[in-house]
């Protein structure tokens, strides 16, 4: 159950999990990442999840879909997910492809993502 230190790291900061994708992932690695993250959300009773995808040079239909799935599962388990660091070219290609992030919250970078989660907590909201 280890996605390997080089590909992805998942760190705990209080009740928030910060997952950073460090390099391009193939589909199987993406699924493994999803499973690891979902498991840790339960294990640490996380309230917030930040996924940093700044290192990804392509987010294709499968990657978009997997990120959305992670957010859906996290929500069902009581955690809010924010995707941060989508590069401008990647965002453009995702729109052309017809793949947005749907209902999933996004932020420019890690700091903004943290601020977003803090804002939700401050207002007592538990939605994205």
């Amino acid at each position, binding site marked *: 159950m280890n996605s390997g230190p080089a590909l992805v790291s998942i760190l705990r900061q209080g009740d928030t999990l910060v997952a950073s994708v460090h390099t391009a992932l193939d589909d199987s690695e993406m699924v493994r990442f999803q499973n690891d993250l979902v498991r840790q959300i339960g294990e640490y009773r996380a309230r917030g999840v930040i996924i940093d995808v700044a290192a990804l040079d392509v987010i294709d239909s499968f990657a978009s879909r997997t990120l959305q799935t992670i957010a859906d599962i996290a929500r069902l388990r009581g955690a809010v997910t924010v995707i941060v660091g989508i590069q401008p070219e990647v965002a453009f290609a995702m729109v052309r*492809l017809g793949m947005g992030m749907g209902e999933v919250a996004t932020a420019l970078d890690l700091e903004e993502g943290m601020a977003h989660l803090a804002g939700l907590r401050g207002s007592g909201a538990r939605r994205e």
Partner: protein
Amino acid sequence: MTPAPAREEPEDADGAAHVADLMPMLRRIVAARVGQHPAAEDIVQETLLRVLTAEDRIEPGMLEPYAITTVRNVIATMWRKQDRDARNQHRVHDPSEPEDAEELVVASEEQSAISVALSRLADRERQILLAHEVSGRATQSLADETGSTAGAVAAQLKRTRARMRVEYVLALEGVEPPTDRCRPVLLALSSADRRRQREVDAPRHLLECEVCARLSEPLMGRGPVRTDEIHVPIGADPDIVAARQAARELASRAGFTGTDLTMLATAVSEVARNIVRFASSGEVSIELLDRPRAGIRVVARDTGPGIGDLDRALEDGFSTYNGLGLGLPGSRRLMDEFDITSEPGQGTTVSMTKWIDRKG
């Protein structure tokens, strides 16, 4: 052995005349060693062909010594083989010289493959090839004889050499091509003719035909190494990433930047995934274009079940896996040109092009 005669000016720019000049000397050497042996003339021809193939690497003035060494080797090989065959009539296995024996078998197989290949050429092809390369007739002189031009004769010689290589490789491997399409494909590869390779859809045939896939390596190995085209075999998840990274690398070398690069890589990712999901194996080829303007062409081929309803496959949201149907229509939106053909039971080919001077 007479000393090397004063060198005459070659009749022909490629120096074939010099190789042919070796013939009388070789005949004398062979006659002195094997007499009227039935293989005498074969030895001479074999030597000439070997010298011809090595000609580019031979120092000026060294052609004659090289030919003499070669003819001795050819004769020695023949004697040793006959000797071995005689001994092997009594002994199945001779442990005294195992490696040497193997070498001899290889040498004699190559030799007979050359003869087989020559015999499979059309009579006229063989006559012109031998007249030029063995008898040293200049292309101009051959052209005069047939009322043709030197350029046309040179072009025909080039085709004949390409055919000769195909037949040589087939004879060496001891295989008969399994389909009618094999020889045209192998010939297009052997002659490094890209237009012809496209016409006969060589890349698809290599996916479908195991024999040609195997033979293509020695044939293509003779051509110049292509730096403007990459083929990525697709069989599993990691190949999807490999294909899009290869496309990105080639495209950025060609001058693609920023958003165009990302759109291209994303589209490649989608079509490569279709191969993994629906066909299980295939390839993605990425080729730089310079006409009508700078661009990049991506062709994804598979040998899968094919797509029954193409129109539906191109609609957003249609998919037979994962509830996700953006692969094909999404790729079409990411690229400038998009074309798909699919044959049930035969496989699918997606061709897409992106031009470079259009800023996204």
